[in-house]
C-alpha cells in the first residue's frame, strides 16, 4: 500500500505535524507526495522488488481528479488495486468532504469504477453520523471492499502558547485511543454490506487484530502501531499464529464476524 497519492505533487502541511495524545496521536501530514507521475515512474518500480501486490492509495480534490488518477494507474502493470481515500481529514475542500456524504461518496466511486478494471477498496471516514450509510452507498456502485477507519478529526492546544499544537490547527486522531470506535464501526458495517472489510484503528497486538476480525474484518492494517516499533506488524503476525494454534483455530477466515 502506498501513501496517499494525488494528481499533482503536494508539499504537505507545515510543521508541527504531530501531536501526542493519550494513547494515540494527531497527525496532519497533509498528503505530502511527489504526485502520481513520480509515483508511477519512481516508487512503483522500486516497490516491485518486494514481490508484493502494490495497492495505490489515491486522494483527489475533485471527482475529476479521482477519475484522472484512476485512469493513469489503470495501465500500470504493477498496480494490483486502488484504495480510494474519501476520508482524509487533513486537506481542505477535498478528501473527507466526499466521505461524509453518501451521495458524494457514491459519485466518486462510480466515476472511478468507470475508469479502471482494478479492484477498488474504499477508505471510509469515522467522522460521520452513520457509517453504514456510506458503506452501503459505495458498495452499491461497485466498491470491491471497504477499509475503515481513517482518522478522527481532533485537536490539541499548547496552553503556554495559546495556539494549536499542529500548524494545521486540526489533525487526524489514531492509535489505541480510537480502537473502541473502530471496532464498533467494523461491527456495524459488517452487518450492513456484503463486501469484505479491512479493519484498522489502534491495533498494536494480535489480540487487537482478533478483536477486529471477530467484529467483521477480513483483513487488518496497522498504522500508528508502527510508531511503537517498526517491526510490530511482523510481531503481530507471529503472535497471531501462536494465538490461532493455542485456540485451535485452523483457518483464520473462521474468525470474521464471529462476535455474537
Amino acid at each position, binding site marked *: 500500500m502506498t501513501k496517499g497519492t494525488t494528481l499533482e505533487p503536494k508539499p504537505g502541511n507545515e510543521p508541527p*505535524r504531530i501531536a501526542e495524545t493519550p494513547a494515540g496521536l494527531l497527525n496532519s501530514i497533509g498528503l*505530502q507526495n511527489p504526485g502520481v507521475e513520480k509515483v508511477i515512474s519512481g516508487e512503483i518500480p522500486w516497490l516491485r522488488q518486494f514481490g508484493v501486490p502494490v495497492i495505490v492509495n489515491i486522494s483527489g480534490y475533485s471527482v475529476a481528479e479521482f477519475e484522472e488518477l484512476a485512469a493513469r494507474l489503470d495501465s500500470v502493470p504493477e498496480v494490483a488495486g486502488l484504495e480510494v481515500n474519501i476520508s482524509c481529514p487533513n486537506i481542505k475542500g477535498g478528501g473527507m468532504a466526499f466521505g461524509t456524504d453518501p451521495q458524494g461518496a457514491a459519485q466518486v466511486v462510480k466515476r472511478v469504477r468507470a475508469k479502471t478494471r482494478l479492484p477498488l477498496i474504499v477508505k471510509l471516514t469515522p467522522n460521520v453520523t452513520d457509517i453504514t450509510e456510506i458503506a452501503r452507498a459505495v458498495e452499491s456502485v461497485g466498491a470491491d471492499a471497504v477499509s475503515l477507519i481513517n482518522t478522527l478529526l481532533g485537536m490539541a492546544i499548547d496552553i503556554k502558547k495559546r495556539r494549536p499544537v499542529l500548524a494545521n490547527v486540526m489533525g487526524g486522531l489514531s492509535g489505541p485511543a480510537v480502537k473502541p470506535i473502530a471496532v464498533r464501526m467494523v461491527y456495524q458495517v459488517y452487518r450492513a454490506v456484503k463486501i469484505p472489510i479491512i479493519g484498522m484503528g489502534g491495533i498494536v497486538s494480535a489480540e487487537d487484530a482478533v478483536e477486529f476480525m471477530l467484529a467483521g474484518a477480513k483483513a487488518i492494517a496497522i498504522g500508528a502501531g508502527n*510508531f511503537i516499533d517498526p517491526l510490530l506488524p511482523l510481531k503481530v503476525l507471529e503472535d497471531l499464529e501462536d494465538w490461532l494454534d493455542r485456540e485451535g483455530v485452523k483457518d483464520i477466515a473462521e474468525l470474521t464476524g464471529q462476535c455474537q
Partner: protein
Amino acid sequence: MVAGEAKPGQFVMVRTSGTLEPFLNRPISIHRIDEAKGIIELVYQVVGKGTKLLSRISPGQHLQIIGPLGNGFSWQTGFKRVALVGGGCGIAPLLALAEKLLENEREVYVLLGAQTKEKLLAAEEFSQLGCRVRISTDDGSQGKKGFVTQLLEELVNSISLDQVYACGPLPMVKGLIKIAEEKGIPCQVSLEERMACGVGACLGCACPVRNPDGTVGYKRVCHDGPVFDAKELLLDNK
C-alpha cells in the same frame, strides 16, 4: 549493537513506558559511544511525562530503543579548527562528536550555554578530552553571563574556523547560523522536531528546506537529518 554502528549526531528512539501511554517513543541523542564495550550513553533533561518516566527506571532495567537513527555530523580530513556550540540539552550529541574529531589532532573549541550552572552538561568531560571549553550561563552562575551566541561571536572575531557545529534551542541555532554565515564559515546544525516513527516513514517531522534546484520543500528531520547544512534550511517561519 547500537554502539558499533553509531555515529556522532545520530539519535535513538526510546520507549519510556511499558504501557500505551505515553504512546510515542522519545528521540534522544547519542551522547557518547564506547565501541569497545559496546555501550552508548544518553543524557536527557526531564521536561514532560516521557522523560519523567525515564528518570524513574531502576539501574539494570531494560529499555526498548530503536537506533542508531538519522545521518549524524560529517567532517572532512582537511578540517583543522572547529567549534562545537551547544545550548541546554543540545550539548548532548556534541561529546561523541568531540571524541571523533580529536582522533585526528584537530583544535576543537567547545562553547557551552545553559540557564544556570546546575543545568550545564558535560563541561568537565569536554575539558578532559582536551577541548578548549568556554561557557556562558543566562544568570552568570558559571562562565560568562549571557548567551552562547556571544561566545561564538567573540571566537569568530579572534580566530578562523573551518566548521561550526551547532545544536540547541531554535532561537539559539538561528543566531549561530547568522554569525557563521556572516564569516562564511560552513555550519552544520542538529534540529529538533516532534517525531512519531523516527525512521523516515510517517513524514511527521517535516522541516522546510531549499532544494538544490531552488524549489522549496520539506525534509524529514529523523531521516534526512537531524543534522543539516545550515545553507539548505529555511528556518524563518519557525
